[in-house]
């Protein structure tokens, strides 16, 4: 399901047209970005937790050449589905 189909679904549910839906999605994403920027996590029951986590620096080795690289620490956005959502998968 691509972005277009997603917007169509969303606009149908909220009785707005697609372009408005697209705008609101961008607003929502901005709000979410601000939350993650502040270091907070978004926890939604029935969906899961969207959280920024820090990955430590590490040394990785290129298996073919044997060259060692120092990979810097980084922040990544992670999604952990809630148990309710996981349950639905079975």
């Amino acid at each position: 399901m691509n972005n277009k189909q997603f917007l169509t679904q969303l606009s149908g549910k909220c009785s707005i047209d697609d372009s408005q839906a697209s705008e609101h999605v961008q607003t929502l994403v901005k709000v979410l970005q601000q939350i993650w920027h502040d270091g907070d996590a978004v926890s939604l029951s029935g969906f899961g937790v969207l959280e920024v986590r820090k990955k430590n620096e590490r040394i990785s080795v290129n298996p073919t050449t044997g060259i060692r690289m120092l990979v810097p620490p980084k922040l990544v956005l992670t999604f952990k589905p809630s148990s309710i959502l996981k349950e639905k998968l079975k």
Partner: protein
Amino acid sequence: MDNKINFQQLVEQFAKASGMSRNWSEQFVKSFFDIISEKVIEEGLVKVKGLGTFKLVATENRESVNVNTGERIVIEGHQKINFIPESELKEFINQPFSAFETIQLNDEQVEELARMDDESSNSAKEEAATSVSSDSAEQTEVKPVTKPVVLVGPLLPAGGARNGEAHHIHPAFRFIGKVLVWVLSVALALGVVAYAVWPALFVVLFKDVEPNRDGSGMSYTSQFEFEVQPADTINADTVIADTVIADTVVADTVVADTITEIGSFDISETESLASAEQAAVADRTASSGTLVLLASDEMRDLSEITAADTVNYLIVGELEKYVIGNGDTFTKLALKYYGSKKLWPYIAKCNNVDVNKLKAGDVVSIPILVNR
């Protein structure tokens, strides 16, 4: 920071940002996440522009081991939801760390990294080593050593000699050790003189600490700050050793005029006298330092203090009760009470608890250890 934003808070923030009514915002945010979770299960993939892709991924059967029983178990294949953020979002999230780049390492740098790890664990010992010199130099009252304990360690290569850790006692060395104690104490005395006269040697030994000569003494700064008494006040009598002591040791009277631990013993004829002395001095001060420092820290009577860097001990009693706080581990306790992380199993053994189920507020007893 580190808050969890729940659905209501998210709706509130969204309503403010979009200028729409609260009710409508609630419906919008709810449908937004409902559609994602619904469709990702139905269709296996949902792309949202600006956010990323939610994807259903199948995992295969895999074997694992039950940690408690050691049994092999099969974890059945299942489906899980993956989230891949868009690259723009990824970059935005990683902004604080965006200055870092992946660096190619050559072999020397890899070794250096490994050594840095090593040295950080040694730095505590070195601190102890230096403070013992001042401690013992200040001693006015000298207590006789009542129960010298002789520990004989195996050969340490000259390079690693300053690392006064982990001498496993080989029984065969014990006898030779006793005979050579006096020979070594003479060597140590010479070593101390050499130590006093040529501070340069010290610089060589403790490369990572920056010596800072100012005539009367040296001060070193590293992770900790400490001062060394003028070198000439240290003499063979006050430099002690690892065999410290004693029934009723009050920290301040800790002392010793005998050297009992023979650290780098197998140093043989092949090694030059000078390097043997260096190694001996460094080794000795390192390990004795730990003990004396501990003693002065504890400021209480100990029926027996034992060298921290050997392995075989008997538990003879309880030193004290300790209330576990947040972040405490047995290894930390072992480091605190005995000066060596390696002795934590004795604490665990004494308390007969499951190490993994330790919680803050638990009371554990710290055993008194005596060399076998």
